[in-house]
């Protein structure tokens, strides 16, 4: 049986050599100094399953956290999702967020960009800059990151179907500014399977869509080694109405599906798996959420090690971003959402998340204002610096309830994962409408429970005395569409048409011949091909996808 002092001497010390303890008092308000970790030894009990099920932080099966010293050394990354209007406006918001103490950037794109249309496409009308920033070409991306040191920040980009093109634009900005790709850190979401399951921002059919994802698995580790080229996301699955168990199971099933596709291409699991990252929702049921994160790490570690035969411990580690549940926010009595977000954020931290976005209280009404986004960031800072939960790693381990619930969620999730495997995998299950049916059931059931008041939502179906309150709203300047259209016209006028043509032809050839598309996307970006032009080439080669309308 491995002893705590062995872990302290080996894993913990090694972790401190890389990242020393933060220079703050790891002491309670009564001046008690908690140790970095507590185990059954500390309270004199026996836990024969301790090593197998819980283990030590930074060690297999990572139930207690992926890093040896966790928040004692490094807090989670406070990464607030932002983007609206033009690249100039979002760039300004980014600079303010960095000044306010945020440690990483996270870009929200508008719907035309997410769907691979230029801002001046007819289908973009009314949507440009509305729920994120509009990026139609390298010219927009250059403005978006103007004055930001790309080797110093890490950037997360929520982009899926056009992920290859948008990532290529970011890398093109870096290249033109002379930054070293080897030093760039960040994440592209690039998780197309959950688009078919929940978020619905797909362009191409499932098979070529997965091919584009695996292109990044192959190209990424060799060219941009510190970049997470995928963030396998449960967030949208949950927001579309799934339960926590379904979110856990389907997200991991998606992750395994990508691993299998990459193995099928002949890639080495230990080359790509360390750069797979995750993204989970964090909802109101406090302990269920904590258990979900712990179970997710354990399942991933076990499966990667034993089913997919990964040897590098980095391949076993489930590193994750988390976001509080937008779907839980209420339009009624919106200030109550600050309390909801605080509880959810605390659950994510106690669950050992590596990065966190906290929602602003006004998100059920509109895009967040600068003030509401700042309160959301302050909520994280209060948890990080005032609550004391960071004194010791995984402080809820050993709670009868938390450990039991972790086991139970693992058991239920594995049953669903096995069911999906029996169906022939995630793509098959998508084609059979499995996820649509399950989601429709789960979300309707929840809505009925709320309407029957079996579930109480404060301010919605109980305690509804409204205190009159005017919430200031962030509105998007309608000028965005015009500004974007003008910039696009200028880009098309000033670029080298021959280089554009050749770059698009190269992309087409790669798509037709089944070659890796990434080098061609980079060349297209550098040539100032627009996003719409790149996606149109692939629409022609791959076709588009329409899902069945199922209620």
């Amino acid at each position: 049986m491995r002893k705590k002092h062995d872990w302290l001497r080996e894993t913990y010390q090694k972790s401190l050599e890389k990242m020393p303890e933060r220079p703050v008092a790891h002491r309670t308000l009564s001046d008690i100094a908690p140790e970095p970790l507590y185990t059954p030894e500390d309270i004199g009990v026996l836990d024969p399953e301790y090593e197998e099920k819980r283990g030590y932080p930074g060690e297999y099966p990572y139930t207690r956290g992926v890093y040896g010293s966790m928040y004692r050394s490094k807090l989670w990354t406070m990464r607030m999702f932002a983007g609206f209007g033009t690249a100039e406006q979002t760039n300004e918001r980014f600079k303010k967020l960095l000044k306010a103490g945020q440690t990483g950037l996270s870009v929200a794109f508008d719907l035309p960009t997410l769907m691979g249309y230029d801002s001046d496409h007819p289908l973009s009308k009314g949507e440009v800059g509305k729920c994120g920033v509009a990026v139609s070409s390298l010219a927009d991306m250059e403005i978006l990151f103007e004055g930001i040191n790309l080797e110093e920040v890490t950037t997360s980009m929520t982009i899926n179907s056009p992920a290859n093109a948008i990532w290529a634009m970011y890398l093109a900005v870096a290249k033109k500014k002379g930054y070293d790709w080897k030093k760039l850190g960040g994440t592209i979401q690039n998780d197309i399977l959950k688009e078919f399951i929940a978020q619905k921002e797909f362009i191409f059919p499932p098979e070529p869509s997965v091919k584009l994802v695996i292109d990044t698995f192959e190209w990424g580790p060799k060219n941009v080694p510190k970049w997470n080229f995928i963030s396998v996301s449960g967030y949208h699955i949950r927001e579309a109405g799934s339960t926590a168990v379904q979110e856990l199971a389907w997200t991991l099933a998606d992750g395994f599906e990508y691993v299998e596709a990459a193995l099928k291409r002949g890639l080495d699991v230990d080359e790509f798996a360390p750069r797979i990252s995750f993204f989970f929702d964090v909802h109101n049921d406090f302990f269920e959420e904590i258990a979900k994160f712990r179970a997710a790490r354990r399942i991933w570690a076990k499966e990667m090690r034993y089913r997919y035969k990964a040897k590098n411990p980095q391949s076993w580690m489930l590193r994750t971003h988390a976001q509080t549940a937008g779907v839980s926010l209420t339009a009624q009595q919106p200030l109550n959402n600050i309390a909801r977000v605080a509880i959810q954020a605390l659950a994510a931290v106690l669950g050992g998340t590596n990065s966190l976005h906290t929602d602003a209280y006004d998100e059920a009404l509109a895009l967040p204002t600068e003030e509401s986004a700042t309160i959301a960031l302050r909520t994280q800072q209060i948890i990080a610096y005032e609550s004391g939960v960071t004194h010791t790693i995984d402080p809820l381990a050993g709670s009868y309830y938390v450990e039991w619930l972790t086991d139970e969620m693992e058991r239920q999730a594995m049953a669903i994962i096995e069911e999906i495997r029996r169906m022939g995998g995630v793509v098959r299950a998508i084609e059979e409408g499995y996820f649509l049916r399950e989601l429709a059931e789960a979300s309707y059931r929840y809505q009925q429970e709320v309407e029957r008041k079996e579930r109480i939502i404060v301010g919605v179906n109980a305690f509804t005395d409204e205190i009159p309150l005017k919430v200031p709203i962030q509105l998007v300047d309608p000028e965005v569409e015009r500004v974007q259209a003008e910039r696009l016209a200028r880009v098309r006028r000033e670029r080298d048409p021959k280089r554009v043509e050749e770059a698009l032809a190269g992309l087409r050839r790669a798509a037709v011949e089944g070659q890796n598309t990434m080098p061609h996307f980079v060349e297209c970006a550098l040539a100032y091909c627009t996003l719409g032009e790149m996606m149109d080439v692939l629409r022609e080669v791959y076709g588009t996808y329409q899902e069945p309308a199922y209620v």
Partner: protein
Amino acid sequence: MDRRIRVLIAKPGLDGHDRGAKVVARALRDAGMEVIYTGLRQTPEMIVSAAIQEDVDAIGLSILSGAHMHYFREVKRLLEEQGASDILVFGGGIIPDEDVPKLQELGVAAVFGPGTSTQEIVDFLKRAVPERWQAQGLA
């Protein structure tokens, strides 16, 4: 004879958030209405043409992307253009309070924000649609 209320639930534009639309569609169906759900990514032209073809009494638009002003305006305009302005238009999604009076000015009959009970939407349609029938001498 009891005439059944026919409703088209539509997702205009590029937004893929369809949980609300589907929950509402199902609740209306469970309340005895005939419901047609368009599926995702419908243009205003597609929505209006489906509504006329299916001879619906009401169109419910679900929009969470912030593009609501544009889509409601277009749908109302096309209905008028095609002589179908008797079809009632209502909607829901993430719609700021400030925009609700502007939508009502366009002739949008009701806007249901997050947290609305589906019963409220059922009650609204059961009241507003027969009122229209009466006004048109259909009931």
